[in-house]
Every structure is written in structure tokens, then in C-alpha cells.
């Protein structure tokens, strides 16, 4: 019997006395360099202790992960930990399939999460439902080198400035001054939040399931109509207008000079730019005359699913504890550009001699953006079947970009179809209260 076997036996015996050892599964949806970082955290957890073992399974995307979780839960074969993205928050809260993390782990100092991150995932009584994991927010990226070539020395901070810069870039022969994929999260949700505009009544659904969409009558409608006009003028490009066919790739390759994108994209952009271009990231642009509010926390959080035995719950808690450790959050931030959302980690970063290092660039700006003054409409989005609403929004606005209908007609349709989704959600969960 070698030393490792002895150690293992000893560990098992010790484990049998106190908490039992368990193998658990964690499902996540990310790919690319984020997946690499997640796998590294899983390996680090398994290496750091011998009591529990987490098996991290990549599902390819948040949606696929969710589909499989639904099927697995119905078959009673589901993982204990699952990562899911912002849009599914209410669907999961009412599903009855998850246990609020704060109920299972009351001893954790959940107050250390910044208010913007808490508000998105907490119940009306202030209990966190999920542990924020890969948090991000919307930032404004520019290719400083290209901007300077066109004679723009100052990075624009508002839409008026961006359009002025875009006109200069176009005059200088640039084919793609500003690029977007027209994604709901970027052009509607984060825009509405930072301009303090509601997306739906009842404070985006926080005060009841009988909310209705208002996106067709807020200032967001004007902004979206502007995007259509700017695209006609050649200042704004959609992903399909670019050679790369993907807007992040188009920006990273230097084809496009400016974009709005998640902080989670920072690591890839800075790697692609290395030695070729200079990158800037700042808070997402405002219109002049509007007071800046917080942006929503995006990305995803980790939920504990019901129906597991105590040893597995202990293992899940241990893994979540591990992920909350400052050094884990910091290395994850450095590897991906996702933003740490606990004050203790932000303090550690601020005090370290790497505080101004580019690898923490998004942490600083991102948290600053999420910490802007909040209103009841900028807590988050608590609307049912919201994933489907995003699809509807994309479909209708794409028609507007293609000139098949005006943006106002697109938004009117989106509201109509969105309200139908909300009414059906209300009926599906009849008698249930918002937690």
C-alpha cells in the first residue's frame, strides 16, 4: 500500500466521521478562454482538498445548459450546481427547482456583494438566490490607434461624441466606425438601465407578475431609431455587415474602431490587440443631458438545485466557498475580464501593487459603472419567459435594420408579443408569489 492510498483511506475515514465525501457535478455554459478559466478553478478546487470532488461539465452555451438541466431535473438526474445567465433569473426563482444560496449558507457574509450585483439576484426580502459567478457589465471599447489615425485624440464618452468620431473615421475612409450585434442586453437593457429608463412597468417586474413592457415609449426607442439612421449613414455597422461576420471578431481584428461589449470580452480583445493597436475601455456612453445610473450586472451566477443529499450539499457549499475566495476571484478576473463583485476582493485589488495593471482594468471601470446611483428601475429585470423576449426583440429589430419596418413599429410589435409572453408566464405560475 503506497502513501497515496494510505492518505486516501485516512481521508475517507476522517470524512466518514465528520462530513461525508461527495462527488458533485457543476454545469456551465461558457466556451473559449472563459471555459479554460472555469476548468482551472475546478482543478484547483479538487487539488486544494481531498474530501470533495467537483466534476465540471461544459454544455456549450447557457441555453443548452438550461435545456439539459430542465430535462435532467424532470428525470431526477440533475447536477447540484448549475450556472445560468441573467435572463433566466425569474424563470429559475419560480421554478421550485432551486434553493436560495442564502438559505443554505446563512453564515456567509453576503453583504460583501456590491449592491448592483445583489439587486439582480435577490428576493424582495433581500435574500440572494444565486451566487454571482462570472459577472460582467457593459463597457465601451475603442481602438485608440485607429481613432488617432482619423484625428480623434480624446476617447468619446457620450453618443454625440461617438457619432462625431464615427463621421471623422468615415471621412478618413474607415469602413466600420462603430459595430454592434444589436443584442438585447447591449442595445436595450444596459442602455435603459444607465439612462434610468424602465423596461417594463412594476419596476421591471420586481413588484408583480402583471408587469407590461414599456420599451416602445421610453427614450430607448429614440436611441434604437438613431441606430438605424446611423447605420444608413455608414457610421454604425451590424455584425452581418462586417467581413468577420461577428462583431467582437471584427473589433478584435481591427476592422471596426469602436464597440459596446461585455467586460468579459476584455481578455480576448487585449490579447488580439497586443503589439498592433492600443485598447481603451470605459463606461458605456450616455446621451447628453441624462444623468448616469448603474448598469446591470450581466454574465451568470450559480444556483443550487434541489433534490440532493446532505454530503453533496456540503460539497457544493465547499466549492462555492472556494469560488468566493479573493485569490480565486482575482485570478478568474485576470484570465477573463469578468468583474469581481465583492467588496473584499476589490479592496485586495486596490491595495495590491497591480491595482493599475491592465488585467484588472475592467474590474475598476466595471464596478464603477455598476455602482452609479440606482433607481427602482435599475435593480434588474424580473420578467418571465425573458429569454424568449430577447429572441422576439432581436427578430423585430433586425427587420427594422433591414428596412422592412420602422424601428417604432418593431418596438410596438415587440411590446405586444412581449406582453403576451408575460401574460402566459403569469398564467403558468398562477397563484405563485414573487419570492
Amino acid at each position, binding site marked *: 500500500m503506497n502513501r497515496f492510498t494510505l492518505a486516501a483511506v485516512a481521508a475517507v475515514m476522517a470524512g466518514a466521521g465528520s462530513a461525508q465525501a461527495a462527488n458533485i457535478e457543476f454545469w456551465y455554459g461558457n466556451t473559449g478562454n472563459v471555459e479554460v478559466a472555469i476548468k482551472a478553478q475546478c482543478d484547483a478546487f479538487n487539488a486544494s482538498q481531498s474530501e470533495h470532488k467537483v466534476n465540471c461539465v461544459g454544455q456549450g452555451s447557457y441555453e443548452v445548459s438550461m435545456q439539459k438541466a430542465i430535462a435532467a431535473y424532470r428525470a431526477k438526474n440533475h447536477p447540484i450546481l448549475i450556472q445560468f445567465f441573467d435572463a433566466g433569473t425569474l*424563470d429559475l426563482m419560480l*421554478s421550485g427547482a432551486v434553493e436560495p444560496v442564502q438559505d443554505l449558507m446563512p453564515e456567509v457574509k453576503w453583504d460583501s456583494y456590491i449592491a448592483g450585483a445583489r439587486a439582480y439576484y435577490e428576493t424582495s426580502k433581500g435574500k440572494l438566490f444565486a451566487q454571482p459567478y462570472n459577472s460582467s457589465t457593459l463597457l465601451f471599447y475603442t481602438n485608440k490607434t485607429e481613432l488617432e489615425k482619423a484625428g480623434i485624440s480624446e476617447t468619446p464618452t457620450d453618443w454625440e461624441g461617438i457619432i462625431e468620431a464615427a463621421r471623422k473615421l468615415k471621412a478618413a475612409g474607415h469602413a466600420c466606425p462603430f459595430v454592434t450585434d444589436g443584442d438585447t442586453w447591449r442595445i436595450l437593457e444596459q442602455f435603459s438601465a444607465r439612462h434610468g429608463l424602465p423596461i417594463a412597468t412594476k419596476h421591471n417586474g420586481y413588484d408583480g407578475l402583471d408587469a407590461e413592457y414599456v420599451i416602445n415609449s421610453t427614450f430607448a426607442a429614440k436611441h434604437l431609431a438613431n441606430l438605424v439612421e446611423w447605420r444608413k449613414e455608414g457610421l454604425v455597422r451590424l455584425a*452581418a455587415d462586417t*467581413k468577420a461576420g461577428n462583431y467582437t471578431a471584427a473589433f478584435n481584428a481591427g476592422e471596426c474602431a469602436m464597440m459596446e461589449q461585455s467586460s468579459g470580452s476584455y481578455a480576448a480583445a487585449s490579447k488580439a490587440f497586443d503589439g498592433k493597436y492600443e485598447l481603451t475601455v470605459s463606461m458605456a456612453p450616455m446621451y447628453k443631458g441624462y444623468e448616469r445610473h448603474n448598469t446591470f450586472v450581466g454574465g451568470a451566477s450559480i444556483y443550487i438545485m434541489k433534490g440532493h443529499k446532505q454530503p453533496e450539499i456540503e460539497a457544493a457549499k465547499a466549492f462555492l466557498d472556494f469560488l468566493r475566495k479573493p485569490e480565486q476571484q482575482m485570478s478568474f478576473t485576470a484570465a477573463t475580464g469578468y468583474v469581481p463583485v465583492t467588496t473584499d476582493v476589490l479592496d485586495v485589488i486596490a491595495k495590491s501593487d497591480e491595482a493599475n495593471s491592465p488585467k484588472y482594468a475592467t474590474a475598476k471601470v466595471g464596478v464603477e459603472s455598476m455602482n452609479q446611483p440606482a433607481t427602482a428601475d435599475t435593480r434588474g429585470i424580473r420578467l418571465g*419567459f425573458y429569454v424568449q423576449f430577447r429572441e422576439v426583440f432581436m427578430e423585430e429589430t433586425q427587420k427594422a435594420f433591414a428596412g422592412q419596418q420602422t424601428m417604432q413599429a418593431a418596438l410596438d410589435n415587440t411590446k405586444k408579443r412581449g406582453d403576451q409572453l408575460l401574460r*402566459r408566464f403569469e398564467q*403558468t405560475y398562477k397563484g405563485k408569489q414573487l419570492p
Partner: protein
Amino acid sequence: MSSESSMFSHRWLPVLLLAPLMLLIVLFFYVPVFQAFYWSFFLEQPFGGGSEFVGLQNFQRVLSDPEFWGATGRTVIFMLTASSLAVVVPLMLAIAADRKIGMSYPARNILVWPKGIAGASIGVVFAFIFNPFVGLMAPLNSLFPGLWNPGIDGTDAFITLVAAHVWSGIPFNFVILLAGLRSIPPTMYQAAAMDGAGPWRRIFDVQLPLIMPQLFLTFVLEFTESITSVFALIDTITGGGPGGSTTLLVYKIYVDGFRGFDLSGASTQTAILMVFVLILAACQFFFLGRRINYER
């Protein structure tokens, strides 16, 4: 005619031999279909927390939804254009390959090869071929900017989809039609030629009537296949966009059910789609199938 059971002396042997296959069909076809029909009368919570019987409300909602009719309309257009072309193009190729013209022998082989390619792979390849910046249309686009862009223009995306579907349908239909043509006795052509019938005359009066059973088979399969098998192409080429222009019914069901967690709505549409396909196949057999003479 000999008795059909004469091959098996034992009464239960055929049943036993069939059982594994039947089990699979029941498990992966009849059970889900039953489930879909069942759910179409309920409002079902995604995680199974509870469901409410709502009678025909789901059908009422779906049938009054303009999006559903839009997707149905696109499905019918696709069925008519793509499946007609997917039979006509292989028919022309088969007639050509059947004639003793140069390269017809290697062509008979080469045209079958694409059969081995999965729909998703075809989708990836066609997305590249029809890419507005690097694909086949790129030279045209540089002459007339904005002429071709399936990422923006719904019609362009639809054409891409039809082209990919027709291409992927060539091998199977080609084999069936060519086999039909090869089985026509050459004496028929010779007699027709002796009577003064030119090549076109021989195609329309001899070949086409004689391969009617094969044509019918390919049409029936294509019509029903085009409704369901297009899923892989949509998912890899267009993702249903832009602006829903390539969201055919089968893709809408997937999006509603799996991305929107609307199990009841997706089930209802599945039920409607299945009834539609059944009616379609029944119509074909009633109105076309009866007229076909299978005896030579």
C-alpha cells in the same frame, strides 16, 4: 403468391425479431408524440412544478398568433420551392447520366457521394460559400455593394437555405430516379426512335411516364422531409434570421420550446405540424398515388 409467414415456422419468432426495433420506435417516437399531444392541452411549468389543464386555449393562442402563420407560410413556400427543385434538379442529372454521354459513368458515382454528409456539415459549408465577403457572391458584391447579404436580407437567407437543401437532396433522389431510368427496357427507346420521336419526345412520352412510381416516391419523401429535415440547415446557416425570415415551423418549435422554455406552446405547434404532415401525405396518396400505374 406464397404465404408471407412461410419464412418463419415459429409464430412468435417474427415478433421477437421485430421487438427491439418496435421498442425503439415506441420509446423515441410514440411516447414523445403522445407527450406533445398531452402537453398541448396544459400549461406546463418548465421544471415540472405543476401544470394546469387549459383545454384548447393553447391551440387558440397559437392559431391566432401571426408569428405562427408567418412560420407556416414560410414552411409552405420552402416546401414548394425547395422540394420541387430537389426533385427536378436530380431528375435532369439522372436523365443526363442515363444517356451515353461523356463522363456519365463517373458522374453516376460522384453525384451520390454527398449523401454521406450530415445536414449540419452542409450548413457550415454553405454558410461559407454564400458568405457575402469571401464566398461565391463576393465578386458580385464588390461590383454592386450590398447586393447580396444573407445576414441582413431575409430573401437572400431564404435562397441560401433552398440552395443548400436542394444540394443535399441530390444524391438520394438521383439514385432513385436513375435506378428507375435504368430499368426501362432500351427497346422502348429504340421503338420510339424508329417511330421518329426525338430526344425530348422520348423523355416526356417514354421516360417520365415510366418512372412515375420513382418520381412519386421522391416527391412524397421530399415534401415531408423538407418540413422537418431543414432544421440542421437553419440552425447552422441562419439561426432562423435575419428578422425571423428563415424561421420555418420546425425551427420555431425548437426556439419556443428549448430556448424560450414554452413547453406547452412548442407541444401545441408540434401537434399541429404533425397533423399537417399527415394530411399532406394523405392528400398525395389520394390524389396522385391512385393515378400511378406500378405495372410495366
